């Protein structure tokens, strides 16, 4: 068997793994002093993977898919586009990390190394066309995430978040694995194509159970209601750069994995999973919107906001059409920038002693203390609320358009109504920042990297972002098409 083509297609993963291994050795011998240099090397490696994946995306835009190692790993437009989003989000999170941890002397070289291995796992998740690849990628990403959640060891909340995430994540992995074993038992194969063929011939009750278990476990990983309970606690307890990471890159990977598994192996059984996804979508939107209203902690609020956003993403999936798949990717791309920007702003918010400001009371009158930060947050919050002319509106627009075109008008209507509820707490941000009196009048000092990430996210979310939509829409359509190539 010739491995040349397989190695080429998995180049990004192999490159990231090897870099991770080398950096691990470097950090073992140099200690904490080199942590920043290792972070820079990791960012460079991710940039390399990003460019490599861009080249692959260009090659696969025509709809051609490359299979590596039999049918274990697929490189098509969908996986390449999802990976580009993942790498961009990961780079952003790495840039935001060192400053936060260094204040407590807790930054170590293992942080970027774990993020790199996490990126390898996420790449495997989105490229998986075999249930075994899916599970191994998922575990690699999850295990690294559990460690990252409790990375701030001196903080008991961080340890608590890590433990909670570990126990519940382990439970979800067990549920997925049980579902996989049922699917394998009733189809005789773990390959996506094989499962689809087997289910087309015979779709028994046992197979339905397997499918539901797999979807339930994946719903946990993307924190969709009713499997969302861990999200606010973990997001609040984990160190803010880690929360930034959880809310962006792994979410993209898990959603992309869910979309692929819904359309490829279970693509013939759309009726079987559509109602589950519709329920999860509506429940996530409503719970995400209502749960956020009473929150005082900004991190908890953003956690509920991410649950709410997952609901909108699932509407695109529930449409079960090519437009739906393409809309999911568009939403994910815009979501990544909205989330990264909001958390970058949260990371800038620290008083001169370096203590974090994380409640509404702390951002009162922000407009007079730091107009730039207040206006950036205003843009991001309006974008999250989906108010035109910001880009967040376009994200919701494509999702609802896909739902309406798939004759799911009721679903779209409820989604729009709930997004109005969600707008309440996004606008509360603006009210507190601009119309409340400042208690503290000191200014903020954050490294240029934080401001750069914030500025990029704001520019993408501003009306200027619409200039990117035709270009991105073309890629998203090609990606959506590659999912339906089998049918």
């Amino acid at each position, binding site marked *: 068997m010739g491995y040349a083509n397989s190695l080429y297609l998995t180049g990004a993963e192999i490159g990231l*793994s090897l870099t991770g291994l080398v950096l691990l050795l470097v950090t073992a011998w140099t200690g904490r002093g080199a942590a920043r240099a290792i972070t820079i090397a990791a960012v460079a490696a991710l940039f390399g993977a990003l460019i490599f994946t861009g080249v692959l995306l260009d090659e696969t835009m025509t709809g051609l898919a490359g299979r590596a*190692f039999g049918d274990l790993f697929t490189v098509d437009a969908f996986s390449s586009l999802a990976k580009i989003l993942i790498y961009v989000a990961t780079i952003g999170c790495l840039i935001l990390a060192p400053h936060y941890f260094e204040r407590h002397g807790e930054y170590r070289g293992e942080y970027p190394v*774990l993020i790199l291995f996490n990126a390898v796992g996420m790449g495997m998740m989105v490229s998986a066309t075999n249930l075994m690849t899916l599970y*191994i990628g998922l575990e690699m990403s999850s295990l690294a995430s559990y460690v990252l959640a409790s990375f701030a060891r001196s903080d008991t909340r961080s340890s608590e978040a890590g433990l909670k995430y570990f126990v519940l994540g382990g439970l979800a992995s067990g549920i997925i694995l049980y579902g996989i074993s049922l699917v394998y038992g009733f189809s005789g194969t773990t390959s996506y194509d094989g499962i689809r063929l087997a289910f087309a011939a015979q779709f028994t009750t046992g197979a339905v159970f397997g499918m539901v278990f797999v979807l339930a476990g994946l719903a946990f990983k993307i924190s969709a209601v009713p499997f969302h309970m861990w999200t606010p606690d973990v997001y609040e307890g984990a160190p803010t750069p880690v929360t930034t990471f959880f809310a962006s890159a792994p979410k993209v990977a898990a959603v992309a994995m869910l979309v692929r598994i819904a359309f490829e192996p279970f693509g013939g059984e759309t009726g079987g999973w559509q109602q589950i996804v519709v329920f999860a979508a509506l429940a996530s939107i409503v719970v995400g919107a209502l749960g956020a209203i009473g929150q005082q902690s900004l991190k908890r609020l953003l956690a509920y906001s991410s649950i709410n956003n997952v609901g909108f993403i699932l509407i695109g999936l529930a449409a079960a059409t090519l437009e739906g798949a393409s809309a999911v990717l568009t939403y994910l791309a815009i979501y990544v920038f909205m989330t990264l920007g909001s958390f970058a702003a949260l990371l800038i918010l620290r008083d001169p002693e370096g203590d974090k400001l994380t409640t509404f009371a702390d951002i009162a009158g922000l407009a007079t203390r730091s107009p730039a930060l207040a206006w950036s947050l205003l843009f991001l919050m309006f974008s999250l609320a989906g108010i035109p002319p910001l880009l967040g509106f376009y994200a919701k627009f494509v999702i609802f358009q896909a739902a309406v075109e798939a004759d799911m008008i009721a679903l779209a209507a409820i989604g729009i109504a709930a997004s109005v509820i969600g707008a309440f707490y996004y606008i509360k941000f603006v009210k507190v920042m601009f119309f409340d009196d400042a208690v503290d009048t000191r200014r903020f000092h954050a490294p240029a990297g934080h401001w750069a990430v914030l500025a990029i996210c704001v520019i993408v979310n501003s009306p200027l972002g619409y200039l990117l939509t035709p270009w991105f829409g073309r890629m998203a359509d090609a990606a959506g098409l590659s999912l339906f190539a089998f049918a």
Partner: protein
Amino acid sequence: MIQTIAFYLFAVLVIASAVMVITARNPVHSVLWLILAFFNAAGLMVLVGAEFIAMLLVIVYVGAVAVLFLFVVMMLDIDVASLRAGFVRNFPLGLVIALILLAELVLGIGAYRAGEIALGTPMVAAAAPVGASNTAAIGALLYSEYLFLFEAAGLILLVAMVGAIVLTHRPPKTVRGHQNISKQVRRTPEEATVMKRPNVGEGIEL
């Protein structure tokens, strides 16, 4: 004939040592009985021709899991008497759970035997090479067909190890002094000891 004798020997020993695991008074003895149970289960596996699983049982369960149990049992101070205290009270509940599990087993196997559960036919690509022992067959698949996953699983273990070290390792606070042997040997009694004759009721200044 010899197989039948061996089967009953192993089977009886497995059950007997399993009973001893839960009845032994000393938790360390329980773990040792558990190890005996694993060995006999491995013997049963060899009898049915699954020599790879037999090896795994010995290497993984006896070599790693049971030793880990021993460490845990020895390090934690487990009061067996207090654990036993709730036995009579919880006995009916335990019995109900055992009956439910038994019913599930019977129903599941019964439905499968009756042809109610139609399992998929295994894919051809994953079929074992004809004539190879199952160790060779697993190896042939693992290192060719599933090489990618095998390597990725190795990375997962590495991540787990890095995680465990990151979360628990603390750099030592004080640096231990290094022993300089030649300096020790060069010491003479004259420079190492001082003779003093303190007066009664007074301290001594060194």
